């Protein structure tokens, strides 16, 4: 069939609807992969969480029993309670990366000799792998040979076993995570600061604004897009805190640094994990928590689009 044949006769269905179909054709590969690798597994997890399965034999349908067990673990202040609590601590404490990143960015947003070098030094922790960050901080915290105890020893404070104390361990890991995360937020704000309108600063200055008032009323509103992105990546970072925990404490001491993602891995996929259904139930809970944030992000982006 040639082009000539097409133009001679009435136009083909494809040609008539080209405008409408083309976007879908371009979207198709992405939609397909998203459906197969993201949407479908969500429903599979839901389904699996209703079964008891060791990953080898036949799965046994147990209804809501896995969720019931999770509920009792929560009531008994057991592993699930600890994981959920730690997840919340992670979400809240990790947000410190945003103001910290902002202030470093403000500090570095000047023109002096070698500022590029300073900027890259501050950005450096984000470039190295999370595993390396975890190892470095593990050695830093080491109760016998670590630098931390030597340093607090100078000011006369007693030795502290950061990663061996069940009340401190989560904060210790979060601190390690904040190091690269702050660098990430800093780079977002640095690019944001480039886009700040100098005329508005000038106008603000003429009106007598300076210091905090200048920052709060003139600079920050212009940094809104950067703040939004920093918020998104920090929340996501807090929810995927798995690697640092695995490297630094392996969930310990006695399970007090677990988060939901790590707990799920432990019961379903680790050396001793044979409870696929239970792991899936934890994953579903984690997904529901994430869903709150996803919904919020989508909603605020939608609002922004409409506002234009």
């Amino acid at each position, binding site marked *: 069939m040639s082009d000539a044949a097409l133009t001679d006769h009435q136009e083909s269905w494809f040609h008539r609807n080209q405008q409408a179909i083309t976007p879908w054709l371009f979207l198709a590969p992405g939609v397909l992969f998203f459906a197969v690798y993201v949407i479908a597994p969500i429903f599979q997890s839901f389904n699996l969480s209703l079964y008891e399965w060791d990953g080898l*034999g036949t799965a046994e349908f147990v209804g809501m029993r896995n969720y019931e*067990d999770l509920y009792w673990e929560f009531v008994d202040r057991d592993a699930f309670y600890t994981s959920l609590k730690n997840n919340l601590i992670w979400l809240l404490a990790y947000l410190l990366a945003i103001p910290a990143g902002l202030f470093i960015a403000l500090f570095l947003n000047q023109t002096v000799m070698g500022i590029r070098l300073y900027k890259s030094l501050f950005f450096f922790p984000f470039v190295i792998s999370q595993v390396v960050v975890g190892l470095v901080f593990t050695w830093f915290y080491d*109760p*016998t040979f670590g630098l931390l105890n030597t340093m607090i020893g100078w000011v006369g404070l007693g030795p502290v076993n950061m990663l061996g104390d069940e009340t401190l361990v989560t904060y210790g890991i979060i601190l390690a995570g904040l190091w690269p995360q702050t660098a990430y937020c800093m780079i977002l704000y640095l690019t944001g600061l480039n886009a700040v309108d100098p005329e508005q600063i000038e106008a603000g200055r003429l009106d007598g604004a300076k210091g905090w008032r200048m920052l709060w009323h003139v600079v920050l509103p212009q940094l809104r897009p950067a703040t939004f992105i920093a918020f998104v990546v920090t929340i996501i970072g807090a929810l995927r805190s798995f690697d640092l925990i695995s490297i630094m404490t392996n969930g*310990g*001491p*006695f399970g007090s640094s677990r988060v939901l993602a790590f707990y799920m891995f*432990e019961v379903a996929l680790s050396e001793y994990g044979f409870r696929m259904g239970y792991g899936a139930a934890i994953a579903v809970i984690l997904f529901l928590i994430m869903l709150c944030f996803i919904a919020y992000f989508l909603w605020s982006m939608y609002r922004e689009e409409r506002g234009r």
Partner: protein
Amino acid sequence: MLKSFRATAASVALIAGMAGSAHADLTGDLVIFSDMSNPAPRAVMEGMVERFGEMHPDLNIELTIIDREAYKTQIRNFLTANAPDVATWYAANRMTPYVEAGLFEDVSDLWAEPAIAEGLASTKGAMTIDDKQWGVPYTYYQWGVYYRKDIFEELGLQEPTTWAEEMANCEKIVASGRACYTIGSKFLWTAGGWFDYLNMRTNGFDFHMDLLTGKASWESDEVRETFANWRQLIDMGAFIDNHQSYSWQEALPFMVQGDAAAYLMGNFAVAPLREAGLTDDQLDFYQFPAITEGVALAEDAPTDTFHIPANAANKEAAREFLRFVVSADNQTVINAGDALGQLPVNSNSSVDDDKFLNEGFAMLSSNSPGGVAQFFDRDAPAEMASVAMEGFQEFMVKPDELDRILARLERARGRIYK
């Protein structure tokens, strides 16, 4: 009478069969998956394959060595999806999930062959589930107390054989400003070793096995007695501080530097201790002392094994490989001090002339009347092991929480054993 006749007939048939297969040339592919990924075990594995290949030139052997930790999770996938002909694993309860799922081949026929039945009698129990054998062992090693002989001499101490002597020794060691024992409990299993010994010495091998198989209660008086003994050591400061932050390797320097006098460990700790500079004059070994009088001594001796997956393609060659692995000569070679440095499982093999191997061999063969256990996380189901070992670590840090910990373990028992 009839039974013995049948057994004889069976063994005659098997000998005939074995003689046949030994001559028949093996052909095709033999795929071996191994978790012997550390340098020395890796060389041993490759050496074994090479020697087996020379015996069967027409056989094409493919050896895949997988990282030892990664192997523990990968085995579930490859046994179902892409089974090799031979795979390494561990004895006792660790086999259970795969045996129950029908993923391991029943190799009771090999165990009926006289060469194996006699040579490997001591490990038959650890390979048996439902009266059938599911694999063959290739090596095992003793656990016990490795200690700094020079520190003991300095303080005028003798190897303890009773709990009273042990406590007296420990008091002197603590008084000299050292810890009696180093331990790194970050990965939990080291605390499992302590529980194994304390419980087997306090309540005996049979109670220990009842507990690990779910027949006895974690809130029983016997278990409380075990923890009370453990607490005596904890309260006197016998263990190093902050052990919950260290792996077993990271706990070694305390012993090397003389901050701790001893280490309850498997024989694999000897190599790194020697590499760190301790000579055989400084390093020695003793059997964990008796606690309750009249309780027969029992030991931990984890056994590593070879299995044939049920979905294997070349089971004939796989069986021949298993025969080769457990043969007395091969056992002598692979367990030698310059190879695995462990104990051979075949009683006709010879133990390499190494101080610790000799002591371990003597201990396991003549001074372990109570029985030989595998290890806490191999004898107990995986789920129970992980919950319990976490409890042990918590107990070692916060001994006052014992009641809460035991209640948690008892709840886990109710859920796991059905």
